[in-house]
């Protein structure tokens, strides 16, 4: 495949998703009643594009076994076969089916990134909320420690920790989750700070409510919207970071199919001008763009709802 074909396919994919998004929007607007219709109508096409793309990825990841023509790890023939009947996207450096690995990698890469982001959130958001609500020296200590941890660039810190803990999937997930939780902490604390100054929090404190009640019943319901949007953004960063590590050979390890390491394994083809190995990178980019679109729309909505 040539670069020009590659670009044509990429554009075709984007156009297809956009048309799909437009059709879905028109369809949904047509079948819904007044109140919800306003929301559906004012939602921009980019958000539909994002949601549709994300839904596609999730479905492919869940039903990988049904969608993929071949198993994930089986060597099926010669290496680097071109695109063709048997293997639609050809075979990789070990003779495994490219398309099947691409599909399984959706499950592995997206799944691992999702779990990591979820962990980072659990850790970062709970510490951030705690720091904001308790305040005082707890907040001071938490914030100073986080400041220092954040003053080492994330990828560099990850490399240091992975040297020490080794490059198993578990350590990749834990290391990235801990490092990324610092960013979540910052945001969760900042958002919660805006809520903590509200009179209703003072009212709850003066009523004698405990920490648990204040965090879970008074603060949390008011910070979920920005936190969900931030979850999307953090997911993008984690996803790109894990892909970068895998590309460097330090993330998800073979024979597990993964988009980052697939690029690395097949990079030889690129020097011959064949962009097939870049399909996984395209998959990464498309999902990240999609999530960004949805996050933009959610942030816009939550800021618009305030006034």
């Amino acid at each position: 495949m040539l670069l020009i074909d590659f670009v044509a396919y990429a554009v075709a994919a984007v156009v297809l998703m956009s048309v799909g998004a437009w059709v879905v929007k028109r369809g949904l607007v047509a079948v819904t009643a007044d109140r919800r219709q306003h929301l559906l109508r004012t939602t921009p096409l980019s958000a539909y594009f994002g949601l549709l793309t994300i839904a596609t990825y999730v479905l492919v990841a869940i039903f990988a076994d049904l969608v993929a023509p071949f198993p994930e790890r089986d060597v099926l023939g010669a290496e680097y076969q071109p695109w063709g009947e048997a293997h639609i996207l050809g075979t990789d450096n070990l003779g495994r089916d490219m398309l099947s690995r691409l599909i399984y990698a959706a499950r592995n890469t997206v799944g691992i990134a999702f779990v990591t982001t979820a962990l980072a959130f659990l850790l970062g958001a709970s510490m951030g909320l705690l720091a904001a609500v308790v305040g005082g020296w707890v907040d001071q200590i938490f914030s100073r420690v986080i400041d220092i941890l954040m003053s080492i660039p994330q990828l560099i810190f990850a490399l240091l920790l992975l040297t020490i803990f080794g490059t198993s999937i578990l350590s990749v997930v834990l290391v990235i989750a801990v490092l990324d939780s610092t960013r979540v902490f910052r945001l969760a604390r900042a958002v919660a700070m805006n809520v903590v100054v509200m009179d209703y929090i003072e009212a709850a404190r003066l009523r004698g409510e405990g920490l648990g009640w204040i965090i879970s019943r008074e603060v949390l319901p008011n910070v979920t919207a920005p936190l969900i949007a931030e979850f999307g953004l953090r997911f993008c960063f984690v996803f790109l970071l894990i892909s970068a590590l895998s590309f460097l050979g330090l993330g998800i390890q073979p024979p597990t199919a993964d988009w980052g390491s697939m690029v690395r394994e097949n990079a030889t083809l690129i020097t011959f001008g064949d962009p097939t190995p870049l399909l996984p990178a395209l998959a990464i980019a498309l999902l990240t763009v999609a999530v960004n679109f949805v996050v933009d729309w959610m942030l816009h909505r939550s800021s618009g709802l305030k006034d």
Partner: protein
Amino acid sequence: MSPLLSMVLRRLGLGLLTLWAISLIIFFALELLPGDLAQQILGQSATPETVAALRAEIGLDRPPLTRYLDWLGGALVGDFGVSLASQREISELIGVRLYNTLFLAAYAAIIAIPLAVSLGVLAALYRNSLFDRGVNVFTLTSISTPEFFVSYILIIWLAVQLGAFPSISNIGPDTTFWQQVDRTFLPALTLTLVVTAHMMRMTRAAIINLLASPYIEMARLKGIPRSKVIVRHALPNALAPIINVIALNLAYLITGVVIVEVVFVYPGLGQLMVDSVSKQDITVVQACCLIFAAAYILLNLTADVLSIVTNPRLLHKK
């Protein structure tokens, strides 16, 4: 002492303190190793005697604090000890690679900063125009794309198809400066694209934020022409936010440099670090980590000091 000076000094002090804390983290992270360094090098099958011998040889039998002080003292004068994998002096490994990495980073920064700042300012000034939308699509795509994707696309296009630039940065001791400029072009371009996207987005946001200030509206309501509003009212207040955006985004350079160096087989610090991680060569990783972290902290420190110094509210004290 003037409040300006004391703020700058306080910020500098905080920077040094952070650097020191970072050195502690980097050094003592090693203590988290299951077993210790000697065990790690020799593997599980080593006899206790050989482990003890190695421990004595690399000084592991001394208390951690002594070792830390030695290491820090050495690092301050550029001596990071010995590589575990190759037994060579780390300073020797790092020397020319550090220069190469700085060369690459500076190369990218020199193109990226003026480009990103001017495009970002233009996008902010012509908000919601076709140009702005184009910029928005470009930056969003670019920040959503892994660095290696950009690198390879450029390789296929500029190196393989057009043959304009070498796809591998073959740089040795007898490469001349201009040869290096040519051979580093593709990695620098990749970095530029990645950093420009982030920097442009943030410059645009910062300027839009600034243009929404009541004093800008006031200037317009006084009938001041648009160009003068920008030059006289926006620019003096835009310095600090733009400096911050630049510093913040040079951090992406540090991350980007690692990946780009690997793609282009560029003999820099990033590649050394990745290699050393694969070999579990912890002393080299420590040294690289310290250098990258220090560079990052110094960048932020410079930005903070500059934005303190350019703040009119602090320049003219009450």
